[in-house]
């Protein structure tokens, strides 16, 4: 949007004022001048007529007694009228009887002829006017009198009018200029202020600004009021929105805090429960062992089986408690992130697994080095869980293949552990990382459903996420990401 210059509206107003007043004045001057011309001509004609009448009636005796000298004397009285160029008396048969010509006057405007019933007639030329009148006595035509008047005065009046018009025009335009300055204050300035404010608001998005209202209650003031009202409304909504937002954030923070506290309490509870469960479990395990060792002879095979079952159950419960304590530690222990090689972890874990079950034929594939910036102890747990899982779920296959590596997707590094084991139903993929959720029966594959939950928790603590892809008997791939070093430094560590 091109910023309008401050002068545009003011200039337009000023121009409008000047044009209107100038045009009105010129028209008025022209009208007055035309009227004056008409009046002047009429007056001149009347004046010439009166003079012709006087001369005519004073020339009756001169005409009757054929005395041109007396007529000339009468005519010579006209020398006191400077605008009379010439005059004359004609006899009834139109012969010149007496004449008067003003010295220096030269004109040739023809005398109009009078028709039978006309007493007088006149004509206006460019520089002169001429009037002719009958001289009558007792209803008889004695002769004619004519008077020529020059029209210098008309020119003089024209010039005088022009001068006055110019002066009045100048004064009026000055006045118009002053008036338009006043109008600019009351019309243009508020509009300019409004435009400026609107521009400022659209630029700064600051809705606290208000446009100042002038003293006059006109449409402009209404416009400004409405504009201000709009701003007030926007500001109010803005602040309400901000307030709601703040409240929401506060509530979220509060809830998070509450949740954190509840979670800690829960974890502390589960830790203490797990810990406290260990004592009785060790007692069960120890005494059942002593019973089996010292009283084996007194027990039949059924009793021995029952004792073995008790011991197996106690061992499973011990593992469960270990896992629970692990999960709890994973959640609460402090983290020390550093550059580590996940590939090395993977190789040592796989070696360990191979030692435990040397009869299995498993191909393990991993790059020489897979770097990560993470807590050594926690990532060891992650790798252990994922690889043990893969190991476990490929146990029914004669020949298995397990792969660990890294790939790039969506602008980040993604680690993966892939196996060609029994896989899982993809519809249940989102339940994998929840604690105590198992997709396979304990008889089919032993486990307590805590491992992947632990993995999820650790990855989460590293600012990453974990997910899985797979299908039944087609193998599974577990993916996880970790917060990179840069973004890890930028965000605050918890």
């Amino acid at each position, binding site marked *: 949007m091109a910023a309008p210059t401050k002068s545009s509206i003011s200039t337009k107003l000023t121009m409008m004022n000047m044009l209107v007043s100038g045009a009105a004045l010129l028209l008025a001057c022209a009208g007055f001048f035309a009227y004056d011309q008409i009046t002047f001509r009429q007056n001149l004609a009347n004046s010439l007529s009166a003079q012709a009448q006087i001369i005519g009636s004073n020339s009756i005796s001169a005409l009757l007694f054929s005395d041109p000298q007396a007529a000339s004397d009468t005519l010579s009285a006209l020398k006191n009228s400077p605008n009379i160029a010439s005059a004359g008396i004609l006899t009834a048969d139109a012969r010149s009887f007496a004449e008067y010509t003003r010295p220096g006057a030269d004109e040739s405007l*023809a005398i109009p002829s009078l028709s039978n019933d006309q007493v007088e007639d006149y004509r206006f030329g460019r520089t002169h006017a001429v009037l002719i009148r009958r001289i009558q006595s007792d209803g008889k035509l004695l002769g004619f009198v004519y008077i020529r008047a020059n029209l210098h005065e008309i020119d003089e009046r024209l010039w005088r009018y022009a001068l006055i018009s110019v002066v009045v025009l100048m004064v009026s335009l000055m006045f118009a200029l002053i008036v338009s300055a006043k109008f600019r204050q009351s019309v243009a300035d508020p509009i300019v202020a409004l435009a400026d404010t609107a521009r400022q608001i659209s630029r700064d998005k600051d809705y606290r600004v208000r446009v100042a209202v002038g003293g006059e209650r006109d449409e402009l003031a209404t416009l400004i009021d409405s504009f201000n009202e709009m701003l007030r409304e926007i500001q109010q909504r803005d602040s309400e929105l901000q307030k709601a937002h703040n409240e929401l954030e506060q509530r979220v923070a509060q809830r998070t805090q509450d949740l954190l506290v509840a979670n800690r309490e829960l974890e502390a509870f589960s830790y203490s429960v797990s810990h406290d469960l260990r004592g009785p479990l060790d007692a069960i395990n120890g005494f059942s062992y002593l019973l089996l060792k010292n009283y084996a002879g007194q027990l039949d095979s059924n009793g021995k089986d029952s004792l073995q079952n008790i011991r197996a159950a106690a061992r499973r419960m011990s593992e469960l408690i270990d896992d629970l304590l692990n999960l709890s530690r994973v959640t609460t222990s402090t983290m020390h992130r550093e550059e580590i090689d996940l590939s090395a972890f993977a190789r040592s874990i796989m070696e360990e697994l191979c030692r435990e079950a040397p009869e299995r034929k498993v191909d393990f594939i991993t790059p020489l080095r897979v770097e990560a910036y993470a807590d050594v102890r926690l990532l060891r747990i992650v790798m252990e869980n994922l690889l043990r899982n893969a190991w476990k779920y490929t146990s029914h296959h004669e020949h298995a293949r397990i792969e660990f590596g890294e790939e790039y997707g969506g602008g980040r590094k993604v680690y993966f552990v892939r196996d060609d084991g029994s896989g899982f139903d993809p519809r249940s993929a989102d339940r994998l990382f929840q604690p105590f959720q198992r997709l396979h029966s304990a008889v089919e594959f032993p486990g307590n459903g805590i491992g992947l939950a632990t993995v999820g928790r650790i990855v989460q603590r590293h600012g990453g996420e974990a997910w899985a892809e797979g299908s039944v008997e087609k193998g599974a791939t577990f993916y996880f990401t970790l917060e990179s070093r840069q973004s890890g430094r930028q965000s605050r560590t918890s």
Partner: protein
Amino acid sequence: MAAIGSRLGGMRSLAWLSIAALAPFLPFLPLSAQQQHPTESQVKAAYLYNFGKFVRWQSDRAGNSDFLICVLGKDPFGALLDATVEGESIDGRKLTVRRIAKVQDGSSCSILYISSSEESQLPSILSAAQHFGELTVSDIPRFAERGGVIGFVVQQDKIRFEVNRGAAGQSHLALSSELLKVASKLYNKAVGQ
């Protein structure tokens, strides 16, 4: 015609055009104006009638009677004068010409023309005319100077007239200044002085 006149310059052609413009009305002009060279008698007859227009006549003389122009003595005008005043009137009174032999016969005359034939009896005639309140006019030389009201004179081949205001006053006649203006000479003497 007026348009043509305005296009042509100069006073001379203008005069001609003016005459041409007036030509259709010439039949209505008075007889004296119609003729290019009026005779001396014609002029005098016209003047005699015109004098009546420049005098304020006493109202008791008015009434419904005719306005009489009387010719005393030998008549130089003949029928010419009658033709001149034919159908004319002054102050609403019909003009009539009467020829008289003695001044006493013209007691009701307003204008009295005294023929040159009566020069010898001039003082008595003037005295009587004054008594009757008559405007006396004559061709007799130095008539105005000798106590007449208006006397014809010839100057540069033109008929002029002299006026004696004193004589007019004695006859209780008020002469118009217009008349005095065109008089060739003014006197202010009473009769017999």
